[in-house]
């Protein structure tokens, strides 16, 4: 056997096999194997684009002749655009370009003439193949009353795209000439098609195949190496002694929050109150703060200063204990990749005047991670359930205020902030107005109704777990009331998110505690549904109306989400690995995405998106270990926190979570609680020191003795 293995250890051979498989898979990702002739055909990730313009003018150009009052009929370019969309024209274009007619799609115009209703009625007949399914695409554009017809083409190569545009122009010219001859229009009354210069184009994403192949190779290799690593550990574990027992649960400390004089937990509680009750991102302070800073920034700086002071000056149990968990690693990696993507695309971002925006967003991201690190290092495991109780209380207040706003049109959060706090409060222009599908815009303390719905929705799992696991009837009733008020507040926003996002959290609870959820939650849910209906009348019907099968896919906001997938392809594939710059895809400038995963894919690329997913995954995985630990108060808190992370994961599908600070801060606060409950240092600090060392070791080896699960 050793003759075949050349004496190479088995684990290295396995790594080599894994990397070979990774290389094959990476190749298959970007190349399609063909049998006749045998070979590899490139998959269509790369594409080129070309653009040409035609001026539809009068025989004596109106641009040069002052005697002409107008520029001829302004609808000519539109007429031509509509003609070029027809099947006959499409076939003619394909013939001229030497392409199969079925491979060519034509569409447009898009600038201002397409009808965009809020509710789209689906045709009963089977629709034609989607535009984005074609390799060769032509888009015609014309602005009402303007004499220029723009022709865009997309094809696997820029040369083919150029050919497509030229063919389109040729087909149009021939069609116009034929029509003129057939109808015998006098020469002076014929429109004249003037060229506006050469057709230009280029390859949009050259090299994307190689980038994807390299990324796939790295990911598959990493997965293979991880597999070999785990296998090696398993083998060693079988042959070794049983692992040392985990440290015993922390005994209750006398100075745990809230019965403490430690400033840091109180400051964190204050920050949490600010996040959940104040429209802090709309408050403009009377002092200038760099990077578009709002109220959260000075408060966080104060919190950070206290934290740093405690780290340097305080000894013993009051000192923040920094323990790096997997969540820290994922968050730091995400931040680093976001910085890297912005730096690598800095010339373009500066050129487009978007680099400052990216810097502001990076500072905001750093603020989230700073809050997470502070919470994870300050909060003790025993304090986590108490912070959860505070969070539920604050959510109840926020939801109650929201219901008041829904019923009376009075937003206490903005009004009272303006009256009590220094600086000015920017009240949203759309506050309490109707949106395009007739929903009242209810803001509560947040910056957007969807943000409010998600923020209170994130707290629902905590209240539900309280209801499920409380042994006392009195507490269960209190939690049931809290759930009712929170749900009433969420539903008052009349957003689909208020139902869809918490539903994801409840599914996580159902997965972990199926019997309890069925036995206790369903009866309570029925009663609460009735009460919520009374508190926010009409809201439930409005949301379930939006969620009904006949409307769900046809509402504009839902359709726009799916329309985004093709529209962002150039931005995604141009910078496929690290993106064009974190949060640089400004919705006011380009397109409202309504899906933060897409935004992240554009902003931080595939690698950055994976890092973001790693934050969610590591947070849930860390919570999972605490849930399975069986430590009653902590496992319940971790379960609710995990469900809350699921709410954020679903909300990320629905809107840009990271640009909404209420939701993002709350998410990183909850992630901090999970890390605080997991961090081995936190638990070891409170646990009595083991009496007996399991084994002696040399100093060098002692350094390697790290607690399992510390990274």
């Amino acid at each position, binding site marked *: 056997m050793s003759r075949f293995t050349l004496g190479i250890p088995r684990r290295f051979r396995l790594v080599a096999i894994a990397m070979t498989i990774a290389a094959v898979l990476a190749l298959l990702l970007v190349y399609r194997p063909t049998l006749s002739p045998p070979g590899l055909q490139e998959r269509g990730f790369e*594409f080129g*684009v070309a653009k040409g*313009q035609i001026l539809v003018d009068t025989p*004596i*150009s109106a*641009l*040069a002749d*002052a005697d002409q009052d*107008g520029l001829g009929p302004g609808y000519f370019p539109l007429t031509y655009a509509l003609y070029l969309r027809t099947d006959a024209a499409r076939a003619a274009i394909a013939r001229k370009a030497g392409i199969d007619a079925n491979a060519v799609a034509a569409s447009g115009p898009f600038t*201002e003439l397409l009808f965009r209703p809020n509710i789209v009625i689906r045709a009963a007949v089977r629709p034609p193949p989607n535009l*984005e399914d074609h390799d060769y695409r032509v*888009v015609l554009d014309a*602005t009402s009353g303007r004499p*220029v017809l723009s022709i*865009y*083409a997309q094809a696997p190569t820029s040369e083919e795209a150029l050919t497509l545009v030229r063919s389109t122009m040729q087909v149009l010219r021939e069609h116009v000439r034929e029509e003129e001859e057939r109808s015998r229009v006098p020469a002076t009354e014929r429109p004249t098609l003037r*060229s*506006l*210069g050469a057709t230009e184009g*280029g390859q949009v994403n050259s090299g994307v195949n190689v980038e994807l192949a390299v990324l796939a190779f790295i990911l598959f290799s990493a997965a293979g190496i991880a597999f070999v690593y785990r296998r090696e*550990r398993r083998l060693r*574990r079988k*042959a*070794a002694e049983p692992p040392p027992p985990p440290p015993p649960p922390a005994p209750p400390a006398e100075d745990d929050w809230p019965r403490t004089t430690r400033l840091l937990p109180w400051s964190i509680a204050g920050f949490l109150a600010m996040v959940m009750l104040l429209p802090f991102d709309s408050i403009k302070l009377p002092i200038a703060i760099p990077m578009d800073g709002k109220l959260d920034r000075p408060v966080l700086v104060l919190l950070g200063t206290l934290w740093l002071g405690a780290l340097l000056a305080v000894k013993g149990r009051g000192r923040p204990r*920094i*323990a*790096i968990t997997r969540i820290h690693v994922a968050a*730091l*990696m995400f*931040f*680093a*990749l976001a910085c*890297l993507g*912005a730096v690598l695309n*800095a*010339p373009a971002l*500066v050129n*487009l*005047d978007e680099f400052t925006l990216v*810097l502001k967003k990076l500072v905001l991201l750093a603020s989230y991670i700073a809050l997470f690190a502070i919470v994870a290092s300050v909060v003790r495991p025993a304090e986590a359930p108490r912070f959860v109780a505070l969070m539920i209380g604050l959510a109840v207040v926020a939801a109650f205020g929201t219901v008041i706003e829904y019923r009376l049109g009075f937003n206490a959060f903005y009004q009272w902030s303006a009256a009590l706090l220094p600086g000015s409060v920017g009240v949203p222009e759309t506050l309490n107005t109707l949106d395009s599908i007739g929903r009242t815009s209810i803001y509560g303390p947040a910056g957007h109704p969807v943000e409010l719905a998600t923020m209170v929705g994130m707290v629902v799992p905590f209240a539900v777990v309280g209801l499920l696991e409380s042994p006392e009837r009195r507490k269960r009733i209190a939690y049931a009331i809290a759930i009712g008020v929170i749900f009433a507040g969420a539903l008052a926003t009349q957003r689909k998110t208020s139902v869809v996002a918490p539903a994801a959290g409840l599914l996580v609870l159902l997965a972990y505690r199926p019997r309890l959820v069925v036995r206790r939650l369903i009866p309570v849910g029925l009663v609460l549904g009735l009460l919520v209906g009374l508190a926010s009348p009409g809201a439930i019907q409005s949301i379930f109306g939006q969620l009904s099968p006949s409307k769900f896919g046809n509402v504009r906001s839902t359709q*726009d989400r799916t329309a985004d997938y093709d529209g*962002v392809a*150039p931005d995604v594939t141009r910078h496929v690995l690290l993106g064009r710059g974190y949060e640089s895809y400004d919705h*006011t400038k*380009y*397109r*409202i995405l309504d899906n933060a995963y897409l935004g992240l894919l554009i902003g931080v690329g595939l690698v950055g998106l994976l890092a973001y997913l790693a934050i969610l995954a590591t947070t849930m995985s860390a919570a999972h270990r605490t849930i399975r630990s069986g430590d009653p108060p902590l496992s319940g808190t971790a379960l609710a926190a995990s469900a809350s992370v699921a709410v954020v994961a679903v909300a990320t599908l629905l809107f840009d979570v990271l640009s909404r600070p209420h939701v993002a801060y709350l998410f990183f606060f909850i992630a901090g609680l999970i890390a605080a409950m997991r961090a081995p*240092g936190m638990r070891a600090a409170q646990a009595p020191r083991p009496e007996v*060392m399991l*084994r*002696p*070791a*040399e100093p060098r*080896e002692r*350094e*390697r*003795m*790290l607690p399992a699960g*510390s*990274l």
Partner: protein
Amino acid sequence: MELSQILRTLSKRRLGLAAVIAFSFAAAVLMAYRPVGMPPKLEPRTVALGVASKQILLDLPRPAAVNLRAKISSHVGRTGALLQVLTSVRLERAIARASGIPARLITTEGPHPVPPGVQNVVRPSEARSAEVLDETTTYRLRFKAPSTLPLVTVRAQAPTPAEAARLADATYVALREYVAGLRAELGTDPRRPIVLRDMGPAIAGPLQGGMTKAVLVLGFVAVLILGVLALLTIDVLRARLNAPHLMRPEQLLPDGPPRS
């Protein structure tokens, strides 16, 4: 992994840490600067920006401002058409000739149906691709016009304010030449020309710095974080694989007194 362990690991891997810091610095410098020439000099990758703007009025031979009988309302529609023509390849090349800036470095955009900054047109992939191709183009022109006046506003962006002004002024020259060329080609009535009135030289100013320092700092921080995380992760994975409870009995050291 606790802070003390992190510091201990990093102090143990001093060489690796030094390499990470050196690599981070080198990477950050290369991300912020481009080495050019021999001996190589560092040239910032991000350019400072200058902006300029100017106006062009479509007028009559006898200026509308001093002629009570002048009717320039028919020029309003013409202005919209000219805005579109200004974004064409033909005019781009004419502007390049007039300004002495290579045509491949110039891009044009507009006219927008609503003020720029208000997103209302969802561009399909094909149209967006054309914009994406021009993202790194450093000389940029944007045109707009009010809906009721025959006035074209040109906004130019270039690496320096002087170049931006040159670009904006060249737009007027190119447009005038285009219209004159059309008139000559079509033989329009020379007594009733369309007058393109230059409303004065372009006003220019700086927009922002080159952001080189910010790029340098961000690049350094990013690579440093990734490098340090890699160091720590490798160390932790090795330690976990060799953790005492995973070792075979023969690998364990002989028993001894516990250390404090």
